[in-house]
C-alpha cells in the first residue's frame, strides 16, 4: 500500500486569519523571529494498488476538484514511500 500526500494551502493573496492568529500568539510564548504563518490542510491517501502515472493523474483530479477549492487554494501531490512498520516495531 502506498501513501499519497496532498497538501492544500490558501493562495498567497487570500487572507489567512487563522495563520495570523497563530503568529500573533508566538511572541507571547517566547518565539521570536517568525515573520509569517500560513495554515493549511494535509490529506494522507492510502492507495491500495501501486501508484501508476494513471493513478496519480486521478489523484490530481481528485485534489483539484474536491480536496482543494482552486478558487482560493493551491495544492501539491506527492507519493510518500510506505512506512517500514516492522522495523519500527522492533525498537
Amino acid at each position: 500500500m502506498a501513501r499519497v500526500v496532498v497538501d492544500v494551502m490558501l493562495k498567497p493573496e487570500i487572507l489567512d486569519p487563522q495563520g495570523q492568529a497563530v503568529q500573533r500568539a508566538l511572541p507571547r510564548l517566547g518565539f521570536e523571529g517568525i515573520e509569517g504563518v500560513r495554515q493549511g490542510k494535509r490529506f494522507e491517501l492510502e492507495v491500495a494498488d501501486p501508484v501508476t502515472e494513471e493513478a496519480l493523474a486521478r489523484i490530481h483530479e481528485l485534489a483539484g476538484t474536491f480536496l482543494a477549492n482552486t478558487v482560493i487554494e493551491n495544492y501539491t501531490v506527492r507519493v510518500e514511500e510506505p512506512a517500514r512498520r516492522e522495523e519500527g516495531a522492533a525498537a
Partner: protein
Amino acid sequence: MTGGLGRIGVVTFPGSLDERDARRAVGLAGGEPVELWHREKDLRQVDAVVLPGGFSYGDYLRCGAIARFSPVMEPLLEQARAGMPVLGICNGFQVLCESHLLPGALTRNDHLHFVCRDQRLRVETDGTAWTGDYETGQEITVPLKNGEGGYVADERTLDALEAEGRVVFRYVGGNPNGSRRDIAGISNEAGNVVGLMPHPEHAVETLTGPTTDGLGFFTSVLKRLVTA
C-alpha cells in the same frame, strides 16, 4: 396555490438548520413549500429551490464542499442552468459557490469570530428573480449569523461582477466578515441564481425577526413564476 405555479422546494442536508424557517417564509409569501431531502434525485416538479442555512455535513472539508455532491444537486444544477430560480442562503450560498453556479468562495471571517447580528444591506439590483419586489438602492435589515462568510474572488471576477450588475447585496454600516468590496450577495449571469450570507427567511414576521424585510425575496420569486 396547490397545483399552480409557486411550489418552492427547500433542500435539507445533514446539518441544515434553517429549512423550517425557509419553508415558513415561502408559505407566508403565498407559495407552497415542498420538502426536499438531499439524497433525492427528484425535484418533484418544484418551480424554484431554496438551499437553506446550516452546517452541511459538518462542513468537514470546506463549507458546502461535500454537500455540493449530494444527489439532489444534479437535477438542481441542470435546472438552474436552464433558468429555474435558486436561492442559496448562508451555507446554501457556500454550496452554490462550491458548485460553481456562482463564482468566488466564502472564507473564514477576517476577525475569526462567529457573528450574529441584525445586518443592514443595500439592494444593489432589483433585476434578479429574488429581488424584483425591492427597489435598487433600497436598504433592508435582516439577521446575519456566520463564521465563514467572507466573500472572496480574484480582482478580475470582482470587476466583472460589478460591471455586469451581479453584486446583488452589499453590507451597509460596517463589514461584518471581511468580504471583498462589502459584498453580501451575488447572482449568476441570468439573475435566476442568487446567493447571500445574511438570512432573509429570519425576517418575515415581527414576532421573531427584526423586520419583515426578508419577505420580499419570496414574494419576488412567486411573482416571477406567475409572470414567467
